[in-house]
């Protein structure tokens, strides 16, 4: 059984995603990003770190661009970590602001307890961030939730003991049927799909990757139970492609039924209180965004994920309630803002 990397062939998947857009700098052009969101409701943008790295990391304007992230940035000591941090935040903010038609300085990035980034006060836009090597990757949707992940396509993963940590029994059987020279790439694809899905549902790597799986490329990709039977419905769409001929990029998208939210301009999406807070410089008074109700996800039953029930949110504003209820591995008390390992934006994951 062959697992190919390449554009999705499913009409449903093709409809959900435009091809990832390469963005070489803050100057744009941003029309393709806006067009993708207008047509598909979602966009994936990739960039090279060097294109988004300011020449002067001590420039005064950086404080305003990074907002609350500036203090964290200042505390970083490793040059590469600092570079990746600032470049990825600038890309993420510019993508979001191209869509909502606002200035990067006016939008605040914040982080969920698990480290997942979100746009403060813009509940109907969901974002995801990934980076590996010099690749930066941003996903944005107004349809529900999105998770993106990137990994070097030839990164050695096979035969290093990770299959047992990553794959379901069904996936291991499927991998064994793939020609040896393509098996590692297939495992990288599975890895990025699982990372993307985990980011979309907000659990990072805290769900065991052996509790949910994916089938081969070339058919509708959906979450599978460990035995290979279907685990989610059509609300979820997945896509894997190659970027820069070097990186496997996967996207997971949950359609929460916000498809009719065509107007994403900040002027009509931001609530009045937040605008007032931003204008006054008091960005900390806005309430935390509400999250959608939880879709049935991995680990929902002993046998793995199952198809969501009829109470999945389909229309209207984002309802109250956590994306996932606090489990036995919930956020630690007093955890500072910022990504946790394996969630939100872990490099290559």
């Amino acid at each position, binding site marked *: 059984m062959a697992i190919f990397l390449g554009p999705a062939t499913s009409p449903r998947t093709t409809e959900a995603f435009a091809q990832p857009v390469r963005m070489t700098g803050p100057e744009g052009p941003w029309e393709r990003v806006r067009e993708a969101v207008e047509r598909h409701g979602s966009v994936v943008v990739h960039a090279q770190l060097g294109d988004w790295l300011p020449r002067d990391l001590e420039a005064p304007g950086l404080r305003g661009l990074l907002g609350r992230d500036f203090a964290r940035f200042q505390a970083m000591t490793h040059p*590469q970590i600092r570079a990746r941090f600032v470049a990825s935040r600038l890309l993420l903010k510019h993508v979001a602001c191209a869509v909502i038609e606002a200035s990067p300085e006016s939008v605040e990035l914040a982080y969920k307890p698990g480290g997942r980034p979100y746009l403060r006060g813009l509940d109907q836009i969901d974002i995801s961030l990934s980076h590996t090597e010099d690749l930066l990757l941003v996903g944005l949707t107004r349809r529900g939730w999105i998770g993106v992940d990137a990994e070097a396509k030839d990164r050695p993963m096979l035969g290093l003991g990770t299959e047992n940590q990553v794959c379901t029994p069904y996936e291991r059987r499927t991998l064994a049927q793939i020609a040896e020279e393509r098996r590692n790439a297939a495992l990288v694809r599975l890895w990025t799909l699982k990372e993307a899905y985990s980011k979309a549902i907000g659990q990072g790597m805290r769900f065991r990757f052996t509790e949910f799986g994916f089938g081969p490329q070339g058919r509708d990709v959906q979450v599978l139970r460990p035995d290979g039977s279907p685990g989610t419905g059509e609300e979820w769409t997945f896509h894997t492609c190659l970027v820069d001929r070097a990186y496997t990029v996967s996207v997971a998208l949950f359609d929460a039924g916000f498809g009719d939210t065509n107007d994403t301009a900040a002027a009509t999406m931001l609530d009045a209180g937040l605008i007032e807070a931003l204008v006054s410089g008091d960005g900390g008074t806005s309430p935390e965004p509400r999250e959608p109700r939880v879709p049935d996800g991995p680990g929902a039953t002993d046998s793995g994920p199952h198809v969501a029930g009829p109470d999945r949110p389909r229309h209207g504003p984002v309802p109250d309630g956590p994306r996932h209820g606090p489990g036995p591995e919930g956020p630690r008390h007093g955890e500072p803002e910022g*990504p*946790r390992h394996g969630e939100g934006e872990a*490099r290559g994951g």
Partner: protein
Amino acid sequence: MHTVEDLIALANQHLGTALAPHDAGAELTELEDWDSVHLLRLVALLESELGRPVPVAEVLQARSLRDIWAVAVAT
């Protein structure tokens, strides 16, 4: 393996990282040569080295190599 420095040496030997002993307490997200693939591979290495399962869920909560070490030796 007796110390977190042994864990760091194990990672460097098998994962190709260039971690230093003083990285033991650093945030994993701020280590130059570290990512989620490394983490899973390290779990597999630890299980092989220690000869017993390492609780992945607890390792995933770790914020530093020292935290990972603490989880590994507590099992």
